[in-house]
């Protein structure tokens, strides 16, 4: 599995780059977090506390390599520092509280959107040259709508005016969290509208790329041959055309996933959804730099892991990558 080994190597490197970037950003960006914080507090924080704050940030005057080793050592122990805005809660605790919400919401919504978009893309490619071509400009428009604006409109229409959905939070406040049917029902109910937003905001992109790839593949000789074989159209479309057309969609997963994650974060903010995106937003607003960086790291690692999964799936779908196994 040379291909897979190379991919794993690449992702390991990317993960290391993300770690390092996370280390370098606060140290190399022109704004010094402590100064920014003092300025932001407009005198509420005693400038004398500067050294103490710097210490809490893990910022020291040690040379960079020493700091880097300390940073890696702390990471190895799962230590992402202490939150400023929720002092003295460790960053790790805040993230592990927020992560399941986002994984559930964004994970499910992304899978639904991918399946829906890919399926529809194949269908539109098959029916091209008919009325279906006129759907394309509409999808282009849908694809260009900013997630957060779509979320605003959906909240306004579906929850404020029609009262069909709750407009904020992850569950009913009066419920006590636990594995009760009531609580789980409440979670699903609250996740529905944000999920619809993410699906609506992202599926059109999958449709457009899958349609174009399928149209291109439909012109290949092996598809003509399948047709000449007298196979049923459905079989030609799925086993010959779509089966090949989906490959670039999977290699392009990284590109699209980044956009979906970004959009989903904004969606979380609109819905006050207790996930990673909303937490990052609050962290930035509170200038809680350790939390901000911890979140950035976790989000990056999650996306890297998702890409690795996509690449493993690719190995199963494309026998050419299994060469030399």
């Amino acid at each position, binding site marked *: 599995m040379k291909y897979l080994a190379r991919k794993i190597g690449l992702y390991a490197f990317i993960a290391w780059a993300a770690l390092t970037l996370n280390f370098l950003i606060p140290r190399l960006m022109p704004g010094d977090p402590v100064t920014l914080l003092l300025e932001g507090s407009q005198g509420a924080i005693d400038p004398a506390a500067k050294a103490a704050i710097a210490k809490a940030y893990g910022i020291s005057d040690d040379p960079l390599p020493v700091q880097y080793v300390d940073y890696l050592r702390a990471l190895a122990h799962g230590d992402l520092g202490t939150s400023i805005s929720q002092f003295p809660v460790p960053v790790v605790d805040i993230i592990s509280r927020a992560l399941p919400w986002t994984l559930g919401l964004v994970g499910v919504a992304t899978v639904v959107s991918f399946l829906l978009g890919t399926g529809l893309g194949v269908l539109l490619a098959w029916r091209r040259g008919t009325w279906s*071509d006129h759907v394309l400009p509409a999808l282009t428009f849908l694809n*260009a709508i900013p997630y957060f604006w779509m979320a605003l409109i959906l909240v306004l229409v579906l929850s404020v005016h029609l009262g069909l959905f709750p407009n904020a939070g992850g569950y009913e406040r009066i419920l006590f969290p636990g594995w009760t049917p009531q609580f789980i029902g409440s979670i699903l109910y609250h996740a529905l509208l944000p999920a619809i937003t993410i699906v609506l905001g992202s599926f059109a992109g999958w449709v457009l790329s899958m349609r*174009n790839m399928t149209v*291109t593949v439909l012109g290949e000789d092996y598809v003509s041959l399948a*047709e000449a074989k007298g196979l049923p159209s459905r079989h030609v479309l799925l086993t010959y055309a779509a089966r*090949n057309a989906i490959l670039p969609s999977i290699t392009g997963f990284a590109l699209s996933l980044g956009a979906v994650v970004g959009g989903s974060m904004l969606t979380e903010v609109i819905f006050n959804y207790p996930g990673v995106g909303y937490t990052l937003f609050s962290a930035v607003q509170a200038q809680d730099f350790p939390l901000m960086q911890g979140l950035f790291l976790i989000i990056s690692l999650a996306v890297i892991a998702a890409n690795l999964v996509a690449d493993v799936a690719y190995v199963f779908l494309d026998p050419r990558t299994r*060469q030399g196994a």
Partner: protein
Amino acid sequence: MSISSLVPRSGKVRAGLIIVLVFVLIALIGPLTATHAPQATSFDLRQAPSARHWMGTTQTGQDVYAQFVTGARVSLLVGLVAGVVSQVFSVIIGLLGGYLRGVADDLLYILTAVFLVIPGMPLLIVLTGYLPSRGLFAIAVVIAITSWAGSARVIRAQTMSLSGREFVEAARAGGESRLRIMFAEVLPNMLPLVASGFLFSVIGGILSEAGLSFLGLGSLTTVSWGSMLYFAQSGQALLSGAWWWYVPPGLAIAIIGAGLALINFGIDEYANPRLRTGAARRHAARGSLAAGADPTAADAAAGGTELPAGGAGGPAAAAATTRAGAAGTSGSGAALADTVPDADPVIRAADVTGDPVIEVDALSVDYPTVHGTVHAVDGVTLTLHRGEILGLAGESGSGKSTLTNAITRMLRPPARIAGGAVTYTDADGTRTDLLALDDRGLRGIRWTEIAVVFQSAMNALNPVTSIGSQFDDVIRVHRPDLGPTRRTELAREHLRRVGIDPERIGAYPHELSGGMKQRVAIAIALVLEPDVIFMDEPTTALDLLVQREVLDQIVRLREEYGFAIVFTTHDLALLLEISDSIAVMRRGHLVEYGPAAEIYRYARHPYTRSLLDSLEALGSLA
């Protein structure tokens, strides 16, 4: 050049350009027409649109129209700067990596992968979190840094494929510097890609700026569409029903994003003709699933003289070049068709003993093009007998592929059958009108009675499924009563017949050599023991030694099974050797048709004679 030639023909591109133009005008002129300063407050709090405030006011009495038009200027500017900076990064990194290869490429590839995979928005948020002052330009550059990678990867791939082409080789041989080759030779050939990447980054820039500003992370002292939405959200515009405040900026972002994407569609379609929609595609042929731009259509329409340069090398363009390349090796240049005078066709009686299996009667196929209708096949009449090998000769663009595609009902739009009939007669003497068959009837006759072997074995087998399953699906559909074990046996038996180890049944196409792939394709064609096999240049893509092996095999299998073959090629020498009868096509007409031996000895049509003479000059018949 007239003005009208500058207006794109595609409706999508036109719509996109109009949208973008309107917004550019709003950004340029709009702020001059505003009667209020965008940030000036007044006592007209949260008012609906009126003559005084064309688009209403905000919670603090600011004029929404003034904000909207100023926001247009800011948002477009950020998008533009982000697009330019990001595309400069992409082009430099993509070109360097793709052209230099080696270690430099590896490093740049990894760098690109890092930026591609690390999610842009969180990185953007963290980066802007640390920006001491959030000026517009700084934000645009940060957006560019998080968005260049996707386009760089595309440009790298295209550079790699271009740097092997003749014009780059020529420049290299001419001693041009690497930089010059990269930027003066390679880059101009992928402008569509660069343009498309640029438009995408502009969209990305506008969206990212809006997102950041909406989170309160942008430059909130500047009015942009994003910051309008930020203030609308914090000012409870939604709950108070002030739609005039939050609808225009969001809608504007979506519309301009769609406009830019529509232009991108046009660029994609220019680079890859298969994606085109609209007028050219409306004459969809019945029963045809794959209606991509057929290379044979392109070369028939171009009269066989030259193939249209297919943009930035989409798959269709690549296919067209392969065919042109193959034709070029035949040694009979396209010029031959033009220099030889026209003469009456020479048709001789066949001397084959079998019953007719396919009769073609006055078949005509037309291609509507922008320059009028091209008669790719014009009144062709042929008879194929049981067990006969009919050689169909002619140069590229002579209409021979169009003819066989018409008979097998594999024509792609816009080609359409303009007249004539094709009749198939089975072993019991039942006659079927092939052109009148519906989808169901057609599927029933395909492969059981009429099978096809394509020119390029490389592309004729599905790359992602095993050889075994490509036998299996066709047997399962046409012989539903056979169980899985029997089907596998059948497949293995036919692999053995073409001289391939049956153990390789689980192999994938990429694991076989070109010759083996072509033999597999032949074995698949034989598996249902059809009456007729159409072979479209089945040996052209193979090297000479393998060509000979495959050819011998085909002739031997014909003896064994007794099927008839329609063998298409531009190689007359080959046809003279294996065929019972030969049909020579030129510009859609049959110019000479008769027994192979007679044509070799007494070719009467001047075109056939010139083809034979050119063969002798090359020593092919020595």
